[in-house]
């Protein structure tokens, strides 16, 4: 186990370094941020001054050297946009994203697992057909579209929930609901498929021969086995959420890392982009390791 974790950590670190190098150079290809920060009327001198201040005049390789030597001291540089340490801005936003992802994924997992298992138990039945159809419709719609319709419907017309923003728990309802839809549809389908094959397995037959009731057959014998392939998909979906739900965060004015990332990319705020990628990548790597551990917990046959 320990050596496995060590190996995973090393592999992750290698990927992380590759990622940072790649992003550093590729993002520089998207042009000079100067034009974005100064008014269009700004003089050439002010532009020059701006570049000098932010070290944009050095050759790329020198900039990279500086960046790496700072990074070793865990200094991600300052945000041009916000004139504060990039890491601070990222961590602040990431806290929001993490909460959003945790809440959404918990709800998704619980509901998708229950609904998917029940659908699998009566394959082809009315419940199965209805849930499959509606979960697929939900998963097929563009999220920004759902978000706006939800605001118009539930906030403006019905006045049930605030349109957007943060503050009370009510503010979480719409963003979570919109984010919920797609992973729910996908995971529901995987749970259903996995459960169907598990329910056809030999050990479920044994349980039926023992006289075990349907509910424990589904949720005790079936579920734990059916979860193994589901976990992979959950991991992918959670990773997507950790990367920031850009669209939802933008519409609902949610100060998460996705919005920070897109703003920073469009504003060429390179230090923030790099810090954001670093933080989310670390989070995703950690999550992947947790998932591997979870595999071993769920399935005693897996030992690292």
């Amino acid at each position, binding site marked *: 186990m320990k050596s496995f974790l060590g190996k995973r950590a090393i592999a992750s670190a290698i990927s992380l370094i590759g990622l940072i190098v790649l992003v550093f150079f590729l993002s520089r290809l998207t042009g000079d941020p100067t034009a974005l920060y100064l008014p269009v009327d700004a003089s050439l001198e002010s532009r020059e001054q701006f570049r000098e201040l932010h070290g944009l005049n050095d050759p790329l390789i020198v900039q990279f050297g500086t960046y790496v030597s700072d990074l070793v001291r865990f200094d991600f540089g300052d945000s041009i946009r916000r004139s504060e340490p990039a890491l601070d801005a990222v961590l602040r936003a990431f806290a929001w994203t993490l909460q959003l992802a945790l809440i959404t994924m918990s709800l998704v997992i619980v509901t998708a697992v229950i609904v998917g298992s029940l659908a699998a138990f009566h394959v082809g039945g009315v419940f199965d057909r209805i849930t499959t159809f509606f979960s697929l419709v939900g998963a097929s719609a563009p999220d920004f579209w759902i978000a706006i319709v939800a605001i118009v419907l539930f906030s403006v017309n019905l006045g049930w929930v605030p349109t957007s923003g943060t503050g009370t728990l009510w503010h979480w309802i719409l963003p979570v609901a919109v984010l919920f839809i797609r992973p729910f549809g996908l995971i529901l389908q995987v749970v259903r498929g996995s459960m169907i094959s598990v329910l*056809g*397995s*030999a*050990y479920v*037959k*044994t*349980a*039926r*021969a*023992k*006289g*075990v*009731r349907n509910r*424990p057959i589904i949720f*005790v*014998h079936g579920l*734990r*086995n059916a979860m193994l392939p589901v976990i992979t998909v959950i991991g992918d979906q959670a990773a997507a959420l950790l990367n920031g739900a850009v669209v939802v965060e933008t519409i609902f004015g949610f100060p998460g890392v996705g919005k920070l990332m897109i703003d920073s990319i469009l504003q060429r705020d390179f230090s923030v982009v790099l810090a954001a990628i670093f933080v989310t990548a670390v989070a995703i790597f950690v999550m992947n390791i947790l998932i591997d551990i979870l595999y071993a917990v*769920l*399935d*005693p*046959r897996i030992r690292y």
Partner: protein
Amino acid sequence: MGETPLLEVRNLSVDFHTVGGKVHAVRNVSWHLSRGETLAILGESGSGKSVSASAIMNLIDCPPGEIVSGEILFEGQDVLKMSSNARRDLNGRRIAMIFQDPLSHLNPVYTVGFQIAETMTAHGTPRVQARSRALELMARVGIPDHEAKFDAYPHQFSGGQRQRLMIAMALALKPDILIADEPTTALDVTVQAQVLALLEELQQETGMGLLLITHDLGVVAEVADRVVVMNSGEIVEAGTASDVYHDPGHPYTRKLIAAVPGTGEMAAPLETGIKPILEVNGLTKHFGSFIALDDASLTVLPGETVAIVGESGSGKSTLAKTLLRLEEATSGEALWHGRDLVTMGQRELFSLRRDIQMVFQDPTQSLNPRMSVYDIVSEAFAIHPKILPRSQWKARVRELLDQVGLDANHMNRYPHQFSGGQRQRIAIARSLALEPKLIICDEAVSALDVSIQSQVMTLLTGLQDKLGLSYLFIAHDLPLVRDFAHRVIVMQDGRIVEQGPVAQIFEAPRQTYTRNLIAASLHPDPEIQARRRSERLAMAGD
């Protein structure tokens, strides 16, 4: 038999809806079972022998299954008319069932203790009580160190232990009937004997009725009072085990009995003085610290069949794989016509591939499901273009298929369209395409039904006579080896413990291990088997 039987199946017919349309799985099946009695349902794969048992346990999925007619009377009551809840309540409490392949029938992610106790908790026994009873049961079925093993998972047990655990699970609530579906198939012979003995013991203890579903006449001879023979969904014969064996009424039964190996003449050893084609010296294979193959030395003569027998984990497959360079040997040499194939370079190895071929255990898995028979057989020519110009491939494939007894017109079909025996013929045709000198058969017929088995063995012998092939025949089935091999090599724990001409091994085994192996294999004649059993018990009593 004046009293009403405990369990009676009357005129049961079950259909299945499948790819090809409706299939009659069983038709008008009737049998009965009384307390303390052992009834065997004998049949080959696809005979429908398990269907009635599954119908009793409500394990048939409807659809695709459909119970067309008949009734199943348990204590005079038709279970098919009961509510599903009432039937569930019978399962495990009154009627219990164990299965073939206990590994896949045990839930891999729960401890065995939990799964044994669950039989009881599912029927209302308090958790604590269920636990202590489960411990008791584990001790009873002979799980060593049962306290510690209570929280172990199925994969941490051996095959025999897993079947014991299944038995413990089934017997937890002292059911009136135990249905055992191929309980010992795929177990080593010595383990099989132990499990069967355990079942008998427990039957005597509890007085339950035992329904044994099997394809193995030996098992029938060992334990059954009465036997029902099934073929293609119908009962063709019924009677006491002894009557059926000695006086089979139906041609199918006769064919089945005739096909059982282990009763024919043993082959004489080949003349000495012929130069061996393969000479293995001190071949060793380590996996980490585990020694899978330890200092194996043997020779194979041209035209000779050398059998390697041993129980699972004895290293016989490792030996085969090392010789085929599917695994790299740790040390030792294997001389093929004087050239060491263990250290041979890729080029030389490539041409050697033509000389040594392999036929695998499971033809379903060893044939690529997405290639047609023609593609499978002609692949040999594609890989080794020197064998044959492309224009002659088709004719040669036809010839090969004829040779292995297949209709050459079927060469554009896919493996799943053939039966198990036919698939193994395809695999043999594939290896013959390369015109090899030596074929390594790794349990090549153990997955097949007895009647098919004997056909394939006849084919192999015929090919040997015609083409002068040598076989390295890896098997766990001693009767088969007895009929087929010139020489026998016995392996245990990675080592060769004994080797010699077949008659010497079977008639005068020197090692206890060999003797045990031979003693544990079952004879289809109930009377011979009864004699052997008493001998075995006497041996164990020493």
